[in-house]
């Protein structure tokens, strides 16, 4: 009964979405306040209805109602509660419902908190949101109904893929979707602005927090996903340039570009056309990611249950959304004249460079991801584009972006002095040179690329810190004055400092862990010992044990360094019954210097076990850096401008100038 309620709520939500997509839009065009006013209640009702549907599915999972096909296929009564809940989005139908839920929650947020947006504009935004919702509701109802019943009712369910029964992955999809769907807000604002033919600073001020929040979620989602791959798949890797990983990385790259270009719109009333285009492209790439994961067009380790009928539907939807918005763009772009002029060397210029490099890098990833498909379609040849392509193209493109990113925040708006900016980074330059020599001395026998790589990371961190110190006039004015500046300087500037330093940490983590990793694969008997990069692993033994819904073998390894015992590592090899599958649970010990990573595999007979050990220096800097970046995003999000929301349009026209002056004046 509850499942039917959920299904019914979805049907109702679709009809509400149809109304919300048309009436307010027409109302805004005709100038009819009644029709315009419909947008808000419609968005709220739609949110309520989808929440009911999601709650109904959640209820079916938690109570293990196996008369619902979706639950029977993906859940099992013996599963821990956390995975019963995460099982809701661990499958195609449920994950779509989560997508929808987030979409309508965001819509409701605009309806509730968008009071300071002009009513016709808000109505248009909500209408565009509803159009996206129509596509997804129709998709769920016509091809992927999560509430389908099953008769006869099975005694127990088939279980969730054991690889997905993991806390890291329980939260990976929601974060990813919060990111994807967050970009739908930027998209809706862009389309509404195209319809209205106007983009101004107030527009950017609304788009920026949404983009920023979406970017934070997406960063978090990608980081969680790669962390999961690192410790659960047992390959010791954390990024594989797999099509599905790329699918989440492309919106991230485009979204990062959007984040930066919208600053220019907000502060300098320029780059409007480009920002609107980026907003459309970013969300389009999010949709493309959804399509790639579900259609089976590309081979991937992730592949959801694929179904050609679903593929055709999403592709149709994709084309309508993307082609529709880009056609609108082609027609209306000239209406959005840019304002501010700027010299090539200026803050704006730096942000343009950032955008050029990021979007080119994004295009390279897109090309590499779709190339096997292009080739197959044209010549019938099957190939896989792997890490060599991405390392050869993506790396060189990101390199100048990373170097320049340290200088950008030092440049003034309108016209800047590059020499002066570099001069102000003298401590950062000194730190970078010191890092170069230190790495050279400490790791002279390592791969030579590691040396400039580490220096690059140090440069990014040091420059971010020095920019912050410069902003506070640290050591140049009395401490009290610096403290006053600390309190008064805008939080968005601090967000930049953290995010840029975090990116530097990620670089150091990547370079160090890939350059100086030690890997040992061997078969071992209990009592044997093996040396891995200065550490010694002694195999004590392996014994079977029983988990809540799996049987496992747990190996014990005593780890020591220079004869001193450090820790006991206990990797597991698990065998799940529902569905039958083996997973490896690597034992990972994180220390200041890096990770020790141990995996136990199959017994090869006569008490001999295959084992694998890694010593990965500084690898946790990758995820710590990502966390610092997210933290930076959140700090920026808490900036007063965003908290108060967009001021009225008239005030907004005056304010950016003042901000620009106060930033340029110092």
């Amino acid at each position, binding site marked *: 009964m509850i499942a039917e309620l959920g299904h019914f709520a979805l049907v109702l939500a679709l009809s509400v979405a149809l109304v919300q997509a048309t009436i307010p839009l027409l109302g805004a065009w005709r100038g009819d306040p009644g029709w315009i006013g419909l947008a808000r209640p419609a968005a709220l009702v739609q949110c309520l209805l989808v929440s009911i549907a999601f709650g109904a599915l959640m209820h079916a999972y938690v109570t293990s109602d196996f008369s619902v096909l979706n639950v029977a296929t993906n859940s099992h009564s013996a599963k821990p509660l956390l995975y019963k809940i995460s099982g809701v989005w661990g499958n195609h139908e449920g994950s779509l419902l989560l997508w929808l839920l987030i979409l309508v929650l965001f819509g409701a947020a605009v309806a509730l908190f968008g009071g300071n947006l002009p009513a016709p504009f808000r109505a248009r935004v909500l209408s565009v949101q509803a159009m996206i919702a129509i596509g997804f509701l129709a998709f769920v109802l016509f091809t992927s109904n999560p509430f389908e019943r099953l008769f006869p009712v099975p005694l127990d369910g*088939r279980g969730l893929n054991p690889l997905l029964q993991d806390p890291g992955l329980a939260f990976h999809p929601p974060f990813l979707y919060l990111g994807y769907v967050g970009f739908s807000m930027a998209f809706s604002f862009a389309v509404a602005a195209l319809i209205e033919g106007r983009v101004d600073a107030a527009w950017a001020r609304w788009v920026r927090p949404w983009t920023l929040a979406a970017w934070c979620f997406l960063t978090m989602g990608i980081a969680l996903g790669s962390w999961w791959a690192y410790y659960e798949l047992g390959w010791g890797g954390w990024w594989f340039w797999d099509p599905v990983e790329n699918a989440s990385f492309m919106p991230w790259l485009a979204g990062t570009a959007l984040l930066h270009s919208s600053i220019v719109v907000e502060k300098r009333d*320029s*780059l*409007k*056309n*480009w920002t609107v*285009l980026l907003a*459309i*492209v970013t969300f*389009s790439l999010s949709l493309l990611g959804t*399509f790639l994961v579900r*259609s*089976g*067009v*590309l*081979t991937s380790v992730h592949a959801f249950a694929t179904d*050609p009928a679903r*593929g*055709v539907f999403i*592709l149709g939807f*994709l*084309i309508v959304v*993307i*082609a529709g918005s*880009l*056609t609108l*763009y*082609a027609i209306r*772009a*000239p209406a*959005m*004249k*840019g304002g*501010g*002029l*700027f*010299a*090539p*060397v200026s803050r704006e210029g730096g942000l343009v460079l950032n955008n050029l490099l990021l979007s080119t890098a994004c295009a390279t990833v897109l090309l590499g991801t*779709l190339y*096997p*498909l*292009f080739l*197959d*379609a044209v010549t019938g040849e*099957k190939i896989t584009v792997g890490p060599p392509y991405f390392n050869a193209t993506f790396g060189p493109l990101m390199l100048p972006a990373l170097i320049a990113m340290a200088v950008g925040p030092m440049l003034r708006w309108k*016209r800047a002095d590059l020499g002066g900016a570099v001069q102000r980074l003298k401590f950062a330059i000194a730190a970078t040179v010191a890092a170069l020599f230190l790495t050279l001395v400490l790791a002279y026998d390592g791969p030579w690329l590691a040396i400039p790589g580490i220096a690059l990371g140090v440069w990014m961190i040091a420059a971010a810190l020095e920019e912050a110190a410069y902003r506070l006039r640290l050591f140049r004015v009395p401490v009290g004055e610096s403290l006053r500046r600390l309190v008064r300087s805008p939080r968005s500037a601090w967000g930049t400092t953290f995010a840029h330093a975090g990116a530097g940490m990620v670089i150091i983590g990547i370079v160090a862990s890939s350059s100086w990793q030690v890997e040992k694969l061997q078969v071992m008997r209990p009592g044997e010992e093996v040396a891995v990069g200065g550490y010694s692993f002694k195999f004590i033994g392996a014994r079977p044990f029983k988990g809540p819904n799996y049987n496992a073998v747990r190996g014990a390894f005593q780890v020591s360094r220079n004869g001193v015992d450090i820790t006991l590592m206990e990797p597991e090899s698990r065998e799940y019954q529902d*569905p*039958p599958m083996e997973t490896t649970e690597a034992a990972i010990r994180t220390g200041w210097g890096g990770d020790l990573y141990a995996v136990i595999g199959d017994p090869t007979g006569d008490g001999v076990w295959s084992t694998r050990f890694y010593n990965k220096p500084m690898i946790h800097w990758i995820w710590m850096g990502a966390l610092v970046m997210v933290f930076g995003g959140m700090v920026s999000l808490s900036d007063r401008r965003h908290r108060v929301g967009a001021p009225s349009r008239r005030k907004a026209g005056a304010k950016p100038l003042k901000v620009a002056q106060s930033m340029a004046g110092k």
Partner: protein
Amino acid sequence: MSEPIAEEIPRRAWLRLVPLVVALVIGAFLFVGLGLRPKEIPSALIGKAAPEFDLPALPGRPKGLKTADLKGEVSLVNVFASWCVSCRAEHPLFMKLQASGVVPVHGLNNKDKGEAAMSWLNRYGDPYDRVGADLKGRVSIDWGVYGVPETFLVSAEGRIVCKHIGPVMQRDLEILLKAIEALRQGGTAQC
């Protein structure tokens, strides 16, 4: 210092259409891609002799499977397991095939427990002539199996002629049957 720049708005209409055209071209390729099957990677074993192996029978079932069994007559080798959900999907087709007697179907039971496999066959029906119990999956590795189910067409000389990845559906079966017919006529099989 060079001239100040302002944002360029593409004045010519066709420039503004570039993003749209790019999106449509990608869309067209994606549409074509839906009809392609990227998972069908041609097997390196096609045209080669079946690998050497000798597998015991399942407990309580006569006839194991070894290389020599594949010689003398065109046959299908179906990799299956009781834990494999897609195997249930293709299973009725193999039952029909066995009833028709067109071609012998041998089973390669992959990474299974003997009892589980037997109760699966008892429950859903046993379409196989011979079944080799590949408990550890080692023989399947030699066959280049990387997912269950997979089905191989083996010629009378014991050569692997075709490989089908994933469940065999009606359409796939028709292709396989045509190939079998061609082999028996002494021609080359298209699959």
